[in-house]
Structure formats: structure tokens, C-alpha cells
């Protein structure tokens, strides 16, 4: 097996991975950096993020407020020391992006503009029209081309982490073009491979979001934290599931049920604010979990709009006017017309909550280090946790930058503490190769990738949705266990080497099944409702027993072991999340 040596190997070349690579190249120009991704960097799902990235810069804003909004928005499951670090670094990172040439939208005086966003008390979301993630990704990617020390391995699928003597020593990856396995011998590994939304039937996530990085760490013994917290973004297109940014509401768009009523006021987010003049942190600018949950209730009451793709609500942006929509929401308009046949300038657009983001992921500390020496993680695949039980929109893009850089610096510190790097772990590499060979050659099992995947997606959609129940979760746990068993009978149709997407999708399915089981097992064990995890059988928040993070430990063929870890509480004691207009008047 060909061996490629590097000092640091980064898996994933989206916002977090690229930011880590840039931080390493800047801090240590002689460092050998291997940037490994199963897709070309510009295809990373960061490109689909629309609304913006949060960071305090306006004079009327304060770090303390960003802290408060984030911790409250996370229903007090966020580690407050991590949030403190995050909000401090946020403006610096966004500014660094600007210095790298990111085309942020501007105020008339030339300063960076900010827009309102859900759950934020004040405007602090930097944006680039409604393609913020796209512009951030391309700025990072183009800047990375400056550095010869960043050696890219595009279209390499990482299959296993190599662990020896309790240290992560690199990974194996399939060069997709040839089908050959490569051994990446590295002093440290940073995982930045994104989330796993594709385990659900209906998601904003692109095809590549299959939880591979999470699974890599998980199988190497690192726990997955808070996996039960899956975010539903309130406004996805009913036809494709793709995203209409929260900025639609930030710019003044409103949500209506089939009676034309702005129903959020019936769910603790009222009173109704004037049309076109949204008040932050209330009504349509409430947090994502509350808004999605409100829709679920409206559906039950029969107030949802019926479309050929199922129930929906209406996102009305007509009052914004064509000029504002074309200036600030051009992608939204294009997508509504193309995929729904609706022009938001003329008609309200049907939307519905869609799986969007995983608050949970690879357990890391505040410095992006996992419990496995030499392994670091950042971005959606990681869980620090700053997002707690529910993420506020526009915190994620900033998170990529802050923790991408933090992971890089931590990996550098680790390398320095280790001295000369002792490579090898060839035995583990050969074992990884053997696993793939076995899958390729396996015959007679009868299960297909598409078949198992469909059953998984259906189970998750049915039982691990916005509202869950004990019975439903138990059924989901049993189903996932069954699917993981049947996975061993997976039979490939394509046994060739060159760009074998049957094999790649089979491996991605394996990642998703492992992650999905962690999600439902953690959800079943958490007998309370908090943030995005809502249970009909345990509708209240239970701080006495559950002000703790879930930790799911891989147990091979068995169900994961679930343990808990206290949340770090510093300044903000758990309180009531108030998104009614009351707080606005109180703090005015």
C-alpha cells in the first residue's frame, strides 16, 4: 500500500477543514499538510449555507449579549466556557475572512453590514447576499491555493483512523479515481467532514452529508456527544427539501398557516409584530426549534397548507418588494421559481421544516481535541458544545472558522509535545484494506445499498422527528439494530475499482447507520424535552437529571453504550427561554 507522509492530515475540505489548513500553513510554513476530501473542496456543503455568520461588531451589540443568546438558544446545554471562547473569537475570524477578500455585503459607508437572524437579540449576522456559505467557502479555497505546503488529495474517501499505543497515527483512504487504498501516515489528524443529515428522508443536506467523519472517530473509541439533538430548519422547500434561508424572515418575511394567520403568536412568540418590521428574537425571528415545533402543532390542528408534496406553511415575502428580494435574497427567488414554480415577489412560498443540522457530533473539548491523543475535530462533525440543544442560525459558519483554527493550533501544540513523529501502524492499515476487500468480494447476502438506506431514512423520519415518543424511539432503536445486522449481508453490484460509487455509497451507508443508531439510542435514553429534542412522553425540561451531555460509545455489533457528562455552567443559570414580545419591551 502506498504511504503518504504528512505532519497533519485534515479530513474534509469545507469551511472548517480549509480554515484549519490555512491556520497551519500560516503558523508553520514548513509543516506538511495533507488536505483530504471525498469531493473537490468547492463542492463541500458549506457552499449551500445561505444566511450568514454571526460575530459582534456593531457598537450597540455586546459579547455578553451574543453569549446570552447562544446559551439560551441552546436551552442551556451549551458549555459556557466554550461559548465564551467562541463569541470572543467570532468577530476576529469574520474580519480575517474579509481580509482574505470575502465579498461581505456592505453598509452605504463601506463598513460590513449585519442582518437580523433567529434567536439573536441584536443584529450581528455578517452576510454575503444569500450565498454567505458559498462565498466563505470559495474565499477559503482560493486563498488556500496560495500555499504550496497544503497538499490536496481531492476525491479520496477516508475509511479508517489508525490508532496505535493509544494515539491516532493517521488514516487510510481510497483514492476514488483508481480504487486503490492509500495509507496516510500523520502525526495528527483533524476531522472536519461535516454532519449526517442524509440519514433522514427529508433534508436540506447534500448527498455528501453522510457522517463519515463522525463514524471514523466513533469506531476509534471516541464518543459521539448529544447526537439526539437534530435541528429542523423551519423553511425548506416541500419539493426538494432544499433550504430557503432564515434571512427570508430576517429581512421581514412572515409565516402563515392556511387561514393566513401568523400562527407563531399562538406558541409563545407573540404578540404579532408589524409586517415588514421584524422584532429580533420574537415571532418569525424566534429560534429554529420553537418555530419548527409550532408547525408540527399546526399540522395536528389541521391548519397546515396542503401541497402535492405534503403539508406546508406559507412564507410570505411579497411585502419586501422586488428590489429588496433581488438584492438580498436572489438565490431564494431563483430556487422558489425553479423548484416550486412560485415567485416570492408575487406569491407566498410553501415551506416546511426540514432536517438541517446536527448539534451533536464527535466529543471535543474547548480546544477541539478529542479524548484520543492526536485526533482533533471541528465544524458540524464535532460537538464542543457551543450549540447545546438547539443551534442559532448563523452561529455555524462562524463555528467552522473559530474551531477550524482552534483545531489547527491544538494539533500544532500536540506535535510539538510529541517530538519526532514515529510513523507505522501498517498493521492497522492492512486491516482496513482487508475490510474493504471483504465488502467488495462478498456474495450472496442479498441486501442492497438503496434498500437498506431507504428503510433507515424512513425509520428516522417517522420516529426521530420533531416530536418523539418512547415507543417510537424504541421501534427506531430496534430497526437500526436490525439494519446494522443486515448491513453485513450487503452485496455490491459493482465490484470494479475506478470510481466505484456503489462501494462508496455502501461505506457512506455504514457511517450513517452507526450515527443513526447513536442518535436514536441517545434520544431514547434522554427522558426529557430540551431544545430540538422533544418527547411527547416527557414534555418538560429536567435540569436535575439531564443538564448533561449524552455520550454514545461504539460497541461494535452491539448497541452503543450511553453515558453522561455535566454541562459547563459559568455565568448563565438555566432559565426560561422567552421569545415573546415581553422581553423586547422589558429590555427596550
Amino acid at each position, binding site marked *: 500500500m502506498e504511504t503518504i507522509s504528512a505532519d497533519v492530515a485534515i479530513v474534509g475540505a469545507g469551511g472548517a477543514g480549509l480554515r484549519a489548513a490555512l491556520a497551519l500553513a500560516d503558523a508553520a510554513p514548513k509543516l506538511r499538510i495533507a488536505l483530504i476530501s471525498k*469531493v*473537490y473542496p*468547492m*463542492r463541500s*456543503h458549506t*457552499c*449551500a449555507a445561505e444566511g450568514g455568520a454571526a460575530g459582534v461588531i456593531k457598537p450597540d451589540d455586546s459579547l455578553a449579549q451574543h453569549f446570552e443568546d447562544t446559551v439560551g438558544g441552546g436551552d442551556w446545554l451549551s458549555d459556557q466556557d466554550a461559548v465564551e471562547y467562541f463569541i470572543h473569537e467570532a468577530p476576529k475570524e469574520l*474580519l480575517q475572512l*474579509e*481580509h*482574505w*477578500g470575502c*465579498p*461581505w*455585503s*456592505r*453598509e*452605504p*459607508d*463601506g*463598513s*460590513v453590514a449585519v442582518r437580523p437572524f433567529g434567536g439573536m437579540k441584536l443584529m450581528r449576522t455578517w452576510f454575503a447576499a444569500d*450565498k454567505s456559505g*458559498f*462565498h466563505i467557502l*470559495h474565499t477559503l479555497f*482560493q*486563498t488556500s*491555493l*496560495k500555499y504550496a505546503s497544503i497538499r490536496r488529495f*481531492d476525491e479520496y474517501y477516508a475509511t479508517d483512523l489508525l490508532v496505535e499505543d493509544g494515539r491516532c497515527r493517521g488514516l487510510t483512504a481510497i483514492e476514488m*479515481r483508481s480504487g486503490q487504498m492509500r495509507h496516510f501516515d500523520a502525526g495528527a489528524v483533524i476531522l472536519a467532514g461535516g454532519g449526517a443529515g442524509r440519514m433522514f428522508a427529508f433534508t436540506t443536506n*447534500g*448527498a*455528501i452529508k453522510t457522517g463519515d467523519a463522525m463514524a471514523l472517530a466513533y469506531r476509534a473509541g471516541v464518543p459521539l456527544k448529544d447526537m439526539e439533538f437534530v435541528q429542523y430548519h423551519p423553511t425548506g422547500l416541500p*419539493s*426538494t427539501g*432544499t*433550504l430557503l434561508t432564515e434571512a427570508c424572515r430576517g429581512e421581514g418575511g412572515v409565516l402563515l398557516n392556511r387561514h393566513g394567520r401568523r400562527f407563531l403568536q399562538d406558541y409563545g412568540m407573540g404578540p404579532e409584530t408589524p409586517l415588514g418590521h421584524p422584532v429580533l428574537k420574537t415571532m418569525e425571528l424566534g429560534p429554529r426549534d420553537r418555530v419548527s415545533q409550532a408547525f408540527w402543532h399546526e399540522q395536528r390542528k389541521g391548519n397546515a397548507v396542503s401541497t*402535492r*408534496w405534503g403539508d406546508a406553511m406559507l412564507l410570505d415575502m411579497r411585502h419586501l418588494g422586488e428590489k429588496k428580494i433581488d438584492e438580498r435574497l436572489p*438565490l431564494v427567488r*431563483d430556487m422558489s421559481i*425553479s*423548484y416550486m414554480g412560485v415567485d416570492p415577489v408575487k406569491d407566498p412560498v410553501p415551506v416546511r421544516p426540514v432536517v438541517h443540522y446536527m448539534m451533536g457530533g464527535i466529543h471535543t473539548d474547548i480546544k477541539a481535541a478529542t479524548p484520543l491523543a492526536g485526533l482533533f475535530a471541528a465544524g458540524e462533525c464535532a460537538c464542543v458544545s457551543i450549540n447545546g440543544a438547539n443551534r442559532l442560525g448563523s452561529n455555524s459558519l462562524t463555528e467552522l472558522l473559530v474551531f477550524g483554527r482552534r483545531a489547527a493550533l491544538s494539533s500544532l501544540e500536540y506535535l510539538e509535545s510529541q517530538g519526532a513523529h514515529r510513523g507505522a501502524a501498517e498493521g492497522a492499515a492492512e486491516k482496513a484494506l482487508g475490510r474493504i476487500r471483504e465488502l467488495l468480494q462478498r456474495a450472496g447476502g442479498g441486501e*442492497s*445499498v*438503496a434498500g437498506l438506506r*431507504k428503510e433507515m431514512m424512513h425509520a428516522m423520519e417517522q420516529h426521530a422527528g420533531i416530536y418523539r415518543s418512547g415507543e417510537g424511539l424504541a421501534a427506531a432503536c430496534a430497526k437500526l439494530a436490525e439494519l446494522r445486522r443486515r448491513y453485513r449481508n450487503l452485496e*455490491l*453490484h*459493482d465490484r*470494479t*475499482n*475506478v*470510481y*466505484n*460509487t*456503489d462501494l462508496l*455509497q455502501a461505506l457512506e451507508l455504514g457511517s450513517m447507520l452507526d450515527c443513526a443508531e447513536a442518535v436514536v439510542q441517545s434520544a431514547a435514553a434522554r427522558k426529557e424535552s430540551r431544545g430540538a429534542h422533544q418527547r411527547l412522553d416527557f414534555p418538560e425540561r429536567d435540569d436535575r437529571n439531564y443538564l448533561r451531555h449524552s455520550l454514545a460509545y461504539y460497541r461494535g455489533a452491539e448497541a452503543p453504550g450511553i453515558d453522561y457528562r455535566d454541562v459547563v455552567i459559568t455565568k448563565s443559570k438555566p432559565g426560561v427561554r422567552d421569545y415573546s414580545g415581553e422581553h423586547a419591551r422589558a429590555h427596550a
Partner: protein
Amino acid sequence: MIQLEVLRYNPETDQEPRFQRYEVPFRDDWVVLDALNHVKEEIDPTLSYRWSCHMAVCGSCGMMINAEPKLACKTFVRDYSGVIRVEPLRHFPVERDLITVIDDFVAKLARVKPWLMPKEAPANGEYRQTPAQLKRYKQFTLCINCMLCYAACPEYGLIPGYLGPAAITLAHRWNRDSRDGGREARQEEIAAKEGAWECSFVGACSEVCPEHVDPAAAIQQVKIENTVDWYKDHLMPWLKK
């Protein structure tokens, strides 16, 4: 039901590419990508192609659909009658089925030095850039690197060394950014014979661009800027610092 005729090629088993026909259900809200996914899931798992976002922002799914370069995720089957022919993006070597080798394109992007070379160090905070200054180059930032323009460009088809629409547009994007002072550094590449001057303004690139970047406009603007620069250099050399 509709028929897809898809190019298949596996270098391990095929001497040359062949076509395979698939019958898929007709759904009036489907795009060609949905039809391909149906083929892969229900009929033939060996079919290989790139895709991800399904919203025309990642640039993965560029292919020839009835001989026109298109994004499979934004091409609606309802707009076609008869058999829909699906082939890999033209002017790039075929790796496997609908997957092309895009090394040339990626290398060319890097060659134009597509990063900010600041005119001056920023004072405090951000560079000031008015909305008008942003507007000047904004359109050229929208390229999703889908390479439809390279498939449409006959120059690129005839002269593989040509830098190509997206790469030149990317250089122009940075040149026009008010914060940037790197035009001279990028000049060598884009003013070269195989740079902007290889373009004969066919304009096909702009016609097929799904993001309305208008690379043809960018290239002509580059030509004009280069010409003005040339005259300045030769007729008014004292202007050079």
C-alpha cells in the same frame, strides 16, 4: 415513463464508451438528477456520477443533456420529449460513466492567483468597500466552478491549453475588487497567448452559465484592460512606478 440514454464507460471493462438505455417514471417536478438517482437506486447501482447539493450551488453535476451543457439538478425532465441523452461534460477526459477528469480545470484556477493581494494593509477593522465598489465585481464572484462554460467553448475544445472562461473570470473578479492590487501579478497568465487573447468571443460560455456570471463579458473586459495597459506601458512609460 421517459427514456434516458446514458453514456457508460468503465476503463477496466470497456474498450470504449457505449450507451445504455433506462426507462424511468415521469414526474413533472423531477430534474434529470432525480431520474439518474432513480436509475441508480432501482435499476442499475453501477452507474456513477457526481452530485451533492441539488440546488445549483455546488457545481458537481455538470453534464451534457441532449448535447447541451447543463446542471442535472436544474434541468427539468418535463422540458424534454423523446429520449433524453445524458453524457459526461464535453472537452474533459472521461474517467468513468458521467465522471470526467477535471485536473486541468483545477490547475488553471490556481494559475491565475485567485487570492487577495492587498493594495495596502488594513487600518483597523475591515477594508472599506462601498456597495458600488462591491457591485463592480460581484457578478464575477458567483461562479460555482461547474465547467459548463468549458464544455460550451469551442476554443477550449480545439486548444486544450486555453485558460478558459471560468479561470479568466476568476482573475478578473480579483482584479476588479477594490481591495486588491494584484493585477500585475496575474497579468502574465491572463495576458498570455493562451489567456484572454485565445478567446474569439463566441459567447457560448455566457449562454450556458447557470449563474449568469457572464464570463464572455469578463474576458472582453480583460482584453480591453490589457490593451490599455500595453499602450500605457509603451507610450507613457513614465507612468510606471
